[in-house]
């Protein structure tokens, strides 16, 4: 059963389609990882499914209704999204940031209700930020800051949590810290989590469902064992890799060793092929800028 799925979704910037005719369904109660190369459209898909972007065509359904035609405040009670690299205003404390997470449940004036306080305190505790509640967010370490933002999204009290590259720019310990937290939320609190991740080994270890995306299309979707294969990695990332089982957990791990397709290039590249490659590179750059 899935509460959230897309039908014939096409998404584009200005005059270029990034995603075309996407049908994707988010499994309830699982951690789903969206993986793909830079500019593959995974982040765009995540944002559109969380109604931050509007699609060109097609529909995102939440509980059977189009997400883009419902009141955005109502959706904020069902689904929380943490964008990439959010920035807090100077001097805002962890407590204040987390209390903003209660916004969809509040009206106009008035102080925090009992319910608000319950969620704020729980979010502080579950993210391990309780000792830092009075610290300005801009003075925290990268990992702490990310946990503070996750706590804000948690205070929203939603079943579904979307995260756009929650581990980017964090060192290894901080990456694990954040992913462990998400795992805990999924196992103990039964949250449905959808995240864009770059590290494939993180994806296979923490996600139960993986979606591999290339140029806005789903190349392969399923359990980590189904998605993490040499063929998929060659197709999606253009790399040659060995897949070995994790000695501790048995989930597939990838060891990349070569860029794929070098041999497939024509021995004497024609001017036309060069042009095509150059055009593609420009396009990728543009997407990164967007």
């Amino acid at each position, binding site marked *: 059963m899935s509460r959230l799925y897309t039908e014939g979704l096409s998404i584009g910037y200005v005059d270029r389609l990034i995603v075309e005719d996407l049908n994707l369904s988010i499994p309830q109660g699982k951690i789903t990882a969206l993986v793909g190369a830079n500019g593959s459209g995974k982040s765009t898909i995540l*944002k559109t499914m969380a109604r931050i972007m509007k699609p060109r065509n097609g529909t995102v359904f939440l509980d059977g209704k189009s997400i883009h035609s419902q009141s955005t*405040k109502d959706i904020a009670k069902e689904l929380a999204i943490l964008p990439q690299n959010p920035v807090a205003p100077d001097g805002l404390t962890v407590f204040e940031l987390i209390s903003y997470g209660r916004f969809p449940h509040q009206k106009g004036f008035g102080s925090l209700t009992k319910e608000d306080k319950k969620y704020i305190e729980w979010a502080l505790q579950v993210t391990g930020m309780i000792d830092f509640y*009075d610290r300005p967010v801009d003075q925290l370490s990268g990992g702490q800051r990310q946990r503070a933002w996750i706590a804000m*999204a948690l205070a929203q009290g939603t079943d579904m949590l979307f995260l756009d590259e929650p581990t980017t720019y964090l060192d290894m310990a901080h990456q694990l810290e954040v992913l462990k937290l998400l795992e805990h939320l999924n196992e103990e609190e039964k949250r449905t989590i959808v995240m864009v991740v770059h590290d494939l080994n993180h994806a296979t270890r923490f996600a139960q469902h993986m979606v591999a995306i290339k140029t806005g299309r789903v190349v392969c979707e399923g359990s980590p064992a189904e998605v993490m294969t040499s063929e998929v990695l060659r197709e999606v990332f253009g790399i040659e890799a060995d897949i070995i089982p994790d000695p501790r957990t048995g989930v597939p791990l990838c060891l990349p060793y070569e860029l794929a397709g070098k041999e497939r290039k024509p021995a004497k590249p024609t001017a036309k092929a060069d042009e095509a490659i150059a055009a593609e590179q420009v396009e990728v750059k543009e997407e990164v800028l967007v």
Partner: protein
Amino acid sequence: MESSIFAADRRKRKRAYTIMLIIGGLVILSFIISMNTGHIRLSPLDVFKTLFGMGVDNQPLILFEFRLPRIVISILIGSGLAVSGAILQGISRNALADPGILGINAGAGLMVMLFVSFYPVTSNAPIFLLPIMALFGAGFAALLIFMLSYKKNEGISPTRLVLSGIGVAAGISAAMIVLTLRLDPEKYQFVATWMAGSIWGTNWKFVVALLPWIVILLPLVFYKARVLNVLNLGEQTSIGLGTPIKKEQIWLLAAAVGLAGSSVSVSGGIGFVGLIAPHLARRLVGPRHELMLPTSALLGSLLVIAGDTIGRTILQPSEIPVGIVVAVIGAPYFLYLLARSRA
């Protein structure tokens, strides 16, 4: 544990309210000092007596017809400009945004100038029209800036907002200079004083023209404090938290234009109030708008009353426009901000 977190927050709020009370007290103090000072000195006792209808000679005239409306107007425009600046800083997420920098003042100024060039300054021109004209000009400038800095899918970019604001302001100022050249000396004198930022509308008519805008818009903006909090977290996060951002941004921008435009129509080009007051407020009570907006309003009032009182007294009998006094305080602070934001 529970109690300690929320108790800490309560203490913080209490501290903020105390700070607001202190600033409010300073506003009242400036009010009293301002009543006493001027070309004709009135002792506090005289002021007190006159307020209760026991003034002698021309005391009631000076107090009720000259000083009191001027002070009331100072309070209104101070809070209007400060809150307008706070809104603009909030929605653009740019600490350097204020109605002066964003060309809203200039837009209002241009319209005031056109108005003045059609009506003689001294005659009984329809004063109530002035804020409306100024609003029209401010709205036009704001719309132009908004259109220049708005991009689909990205919303208002803070950098584009400030850059296009500066551009529009420069363009309008140039147009104003061209227009000034065509004015007769008497009107030119008036416009020059206006541009320096002087509370020239010193009778009750202006209070009546200005009051509704401030009294209606301020509470409406305070009511939107939480929306401003969330908008401050960035476009994507605000949508995620359930804010219809386009609607809220436009609404708040309109309120900022209304507050700044109506204030400027009476006060002339007072800069810096909309920049400094929100900054100081944030320093004193933190970034939460439910505390920061009322504090800015009070600080804005304090700045304008104090500036006007200083301007009226230090070079007696001539007056220094309040805009210049505030700029003398404001410019160094602005530079200090720039130096700090680079660090």
